[in-house]
């Protein structure tokens, strides 16, 4: 296991392996995204109260759920950076922060659109779900700016790792905000296997497909940007030079 673990830390090994995975991941992403979007935006039944506006859940729920994965991911990467000083973990963490900020932004934007139609407001500062999500965006922007503010890349990696570990607490707050405090935002919809009850399969199967699609999108984006980062940081190494000459 330890051999495998230290191999994982090798940028060259990751670059080669991810190159083999990428076509498969991209193909799966396209398939899931197409099915999810067509199903969700064309065939999803209207909600009895919200009508077709509820179709925005296809994007909002999938992106919001996925956006909560970034801090746990950065927690793992940050811990590996701090304890084992693996460079690859820091490269992943760097791009996870940027992607995570975009995911958080899309969550807030789609939620705001939905809220403007259904709740009658774009934004409520008193809603803990909304504010904790905005806080996640600010935390991620904080991680990004912390990295660019520190000149020494090793210090930056350590500082960002620590902030990511601390920021993880906010994910728990986002998740449970609607249960611990009363909010305008709904609580999580419980899924039901029974098609004749609320939140039946006609709603959640399409949502589930979109969640898988968005996770695949996240993986593909993260792998692509990490590969770029590897080439950039290892540009003086022999294997990157060989790669450039070969192409």
């Amino acid at each position, binding site marked *: 296991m330890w051999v495998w673990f230290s191999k994982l830390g090798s940028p060259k090994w990751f670059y080669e392996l991810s190159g083999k995975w990428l076509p498969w991941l991209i193909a799966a992403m396209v398939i899931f995204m197409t099915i999810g979007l067509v199903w969700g935006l064309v065939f999803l039944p209207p909600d009895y109260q919200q009508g077709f506006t509820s179709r925005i859940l296809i994007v909002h729920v999938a992106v919001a759920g996925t956006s909560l994965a970034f801090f746990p991911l950065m927690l793992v990467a940050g811990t590996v950076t701090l304890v084992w000083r693996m460079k690859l973990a820091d490269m992943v963490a760097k791009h996870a922060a940027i992607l995570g900020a975009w995911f958080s932004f899309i969550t807030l934007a789609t939620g705001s659109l939905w809220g403007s139609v259904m709740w009658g407001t774009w934004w*409520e500062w008193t809603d803990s779900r909304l504010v904790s999500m905005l806080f996640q965006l600010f935390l991620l922007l904080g991680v990004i700016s912390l990295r660019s503010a520190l000149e020494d890349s090793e210090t930056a990696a350590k500082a960002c790792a620590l902030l990511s570990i601390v920021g993880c607490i906010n994910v728990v707050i986002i998740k449970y905000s609607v249960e611990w405090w009363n909010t*305008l935002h709904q609580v999580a919809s419980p899924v039901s296997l029974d098609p004749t009850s609320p939140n039946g399969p006609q709603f959640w199967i399409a949502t589930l497909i979109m969640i898988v699609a968005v996770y695949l999108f996240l993986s593909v984006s993260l792998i692509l940007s990490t590969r770029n980062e590897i080439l950039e940081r290892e540009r003086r190494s022999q294997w990157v030079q060989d790669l450039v000459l070969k192409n």
Partner: protein
Amino acid sequence: MKPHRRKKLGIILFIAAGLSVAVGFTAFALKQNINMFYTPTQVAEGEVGAGQHFRIGGMVKTGTVLGATDSLKVNFVTTDFVSDVPIQYEGILPDLFREGQGIVAEGEMDAAGVFQASRVLAKHDENFMSPEVKAALDAAGASADNHMPGGTN
């Protein structure tokens, strides 16, 4: 694992655990401040001071919505199925506003015990269903929207 790495991992775990506890206590202490609204029962129990600007959240009691014909004035009663609070509002209501629907209103209590709202927002619950399913449930006599706003609160 090498000893110095184990030590580092220990420090990280310690910091994470300490911060979680600190945030947990803070959140608990701020519970009412973080809540978006008071329930009608909390209002009836006098948890809100006189003249205080606050938000109230509850269901629109069925059969209580009275709209003026010559203005945007509307009167209705909000309930958490324990206590009721009458609300008066003048303005445009969200499309989702209807009897039996969760709402959050912002304003203050007047001397007569009527909540004078400056804003009314609609709250939808966690149940998504097609009109067909809703009709079938209603026919079966099971009211699916019989939920308190705010989940467990």
